[in-house]
């Protein structure tokens, strides 16, 4: 029997038992929809986290003092003081693959204006910091290199601070003087709002001031807590890390074989870590959904076995008019595959509809194409695997007994 005929016969058998076929198909539909949704949510969250991360800065590299701490080994406190302003200046001068660089010191504390106060973090930075972190200045301007040299007591503030201290986000506070840890800072600019990031941190609750000022007046230290760099491009990030390694090793007079007394992390690494976590969660969810597909497959096998028994006489007839065992087994295999594939198509559609609904409710959802292809492949395999036993049972029937079966 050729393929078109097999398909036709399978269609007829399915149409003759619409209700029963649909019910056994339902398992596949739900299973596939579940897999699709889980993958879509996984993919969607991954993309939204990526989006958030890249909003935090482009091709961001962060240099921190101290050796890589991944082992959790406690380090000498002096190891935390290895990054100096000189290092920052060398990077600025020598690192050709670094587009922007900023020295960074930070401190948490209370900021006061008049009778209002709020808790925030002050970041001591170079003016390039705004370019690195993709901040835009809404009102006023950023401070300048000149302010850095003079350790001027000026700052730019985020919208949350404006709201907390002046009562209204729109308040024109440029020129006003606020106090952080009793040091007065004149506001020279207000940043455009960024909102909360995906792990719930208010990105607008910041105060940015010249790093020289923060080092001298606030934290009173001669070393930097970190240096942030923006590489010229994503591809060049790794080369840029190499470059920085060389510059800093030279500055720190490290001999060959000595471990770095600083670490450079790229945003890629961070993204990869986040992605790995998301992938793990996605895999767990998808595996759970895949089990429902397994159960659905067993349902199909069950219904096919019933169908084979019910159609014993038909099988006997087909055999007596010349169907070979393999013609019969193909017929039932194709029927099983068609049930599961149709279930797969409907499942993908259902999954798509639910994802659209979820996206419109604000859940990040994105159906990756490969998950659709995977679903179809899995469905075809389910049909083949769970159709095999019923098909073999049908093919092995004795035509003499089958045709007389009542």
């Amino acid at each position, binding site marked *: *029997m*050729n393929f*078109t*005929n097999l398909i036709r*016969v399978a269609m*007829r058998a399915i149409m*003759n038992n619409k209700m029963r076929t649909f019910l056994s198909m339902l398992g596949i539909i739900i299973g596939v929809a579940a897999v699709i949704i889980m993958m879509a949510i996984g993919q969607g969250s991954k993309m939204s986290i990526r989006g958030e991360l890249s909003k935090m800065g482009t091709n961001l590299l962060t240099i921190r003092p101290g050796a890589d701490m991944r082992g959790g080994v406690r380090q000498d406190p002096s190891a935390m003081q290895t990054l100096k302003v000189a290092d920052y200046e060398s990077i600025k001068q020598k690192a050709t693959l670094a587009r922007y660089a900023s020295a960074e010191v930070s401190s948490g504390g209370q900021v006061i204006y008049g009778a209002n106060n709020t808790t925030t973090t002050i970041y001591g930075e170079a003016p390039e910091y705004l370019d690195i972190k993709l901040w835009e200045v809404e009102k006023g301007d950023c401070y300048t290199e000149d302010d850095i040299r003079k350790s001027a007591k000026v700052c730019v503030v985020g919208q949350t601070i404006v709201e907390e201290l002046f009562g209204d986000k729109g308040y024109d506070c440029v020129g006003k003087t606020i106090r952080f840890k009793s040091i007065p800072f004149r506001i020279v600019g207000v940043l455009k709002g960024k909102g909360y990031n995906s792990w719930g941190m208010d990105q607008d609750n910041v105060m940015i001031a010249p790093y020289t000022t923060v080092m001298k007046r606030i934290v009173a230290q001669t070393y930097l807590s970190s240096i942030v760099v923006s590489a010229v491009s994503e591809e060049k990030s790794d080369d840029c890390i190499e470059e920085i390694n060389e510059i800093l090793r030279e500055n720190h007079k490290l001999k060959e074989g000595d471990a770095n007394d600083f670490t450079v992390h790229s945003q890629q690494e961070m993204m990869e870590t986040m992605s790995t976590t998301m992938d793990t969660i996605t895999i767990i969810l998808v595996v759970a959904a895949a089990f429902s597909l397994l159960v659905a497959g067993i349902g199909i096998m069950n219904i096919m076995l019933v169908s084979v028994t019910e159609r014993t*006489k*038909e099988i*006997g*007839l*087909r*055999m*007596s*008019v*010349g*169907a*070979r*065992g*393999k*013609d019969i087994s193909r017929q039932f295999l194709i029927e099983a595959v068609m049930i599961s594939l149709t279930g797969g198509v409907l499942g993908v559609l259902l999954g798509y509809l639910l994802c659209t609904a979820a996206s419109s409710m604000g859940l990040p959802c994105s159906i990756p194409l490969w998950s659709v292809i995977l679903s179809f492949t899995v469905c075809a395999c389910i049909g083949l695997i769970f159709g095999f036993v019923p098909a073999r049972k049908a093919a092995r029937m004795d*035509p*003499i007994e089958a*045709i007389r079966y009542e």
Partner: protein
Amino acid sequence: MSEDKRKVVIELDNVKRDFKVGDEVVHALRGISFKIYEGEFVTIMGTSGSGKSTLLNQLGCLDTPTSGEYYLDGTPVRKMKRSERAILRNRKIGFVFQNYNLLAKTTSVENVELPLMYNNKYNARQRREAAVKALQAVGLGDRLEHKSNQMSGGQMQRVAIARALVNDPAVILADEATGNLDTRTSYEMLLLFQKLHHEGRTIIFVTHNPEIALYSSRNIMLRDGKIREDVVNENIVDVREVIAKLPVQNDED
């Protein structure tokens, strides 16, 4: 002998078939030998237990002999594999069963097409043409698209006969083909078989009803797995005469 000139369609040479039932061996066929020539209308008769079903399974290539040899249209069947026999059935044999065995919810044309579905030499158009021709031959040219549940027993059996004709078989094997039909319809069916016989078809009709032997050209009687009688019928009764004598059918029935 004039018989030697006729073509042998079926030849059984000392065919035996044993079945194991528990520890016992049942000898269903105890050495059957006969030849059936092209164009014969043979009835095979016997009571239940005489081995006629076993013989029918042998003739239909559904089973193989324990010993002896069966030649169907010159092909030895005993050592054939299952799938080879399936193909042989498909090309050489037309079955007519007692309970029609039509596919449910399927039109007559599609039912008749069934054997050709398993023959890749036919495409969809040729298949339909052959099916329509076979249905016309059994007088159902006007019921091509009727489904099996929309037809009477006689019509269903005609569809079954058309299905047996569609592959132009070497032999038509009928198993109690009138067993489920009322008297008049039975005769109409026998009339159809006689017509096919006149057209030169080879027909083997297995039955326990002795009357049918009157209308065939030869009768083989089985008892206890052996041939008891094998006679050529010189005076074939024309079924039309019998139908003419039947009481007029009451349409209200």
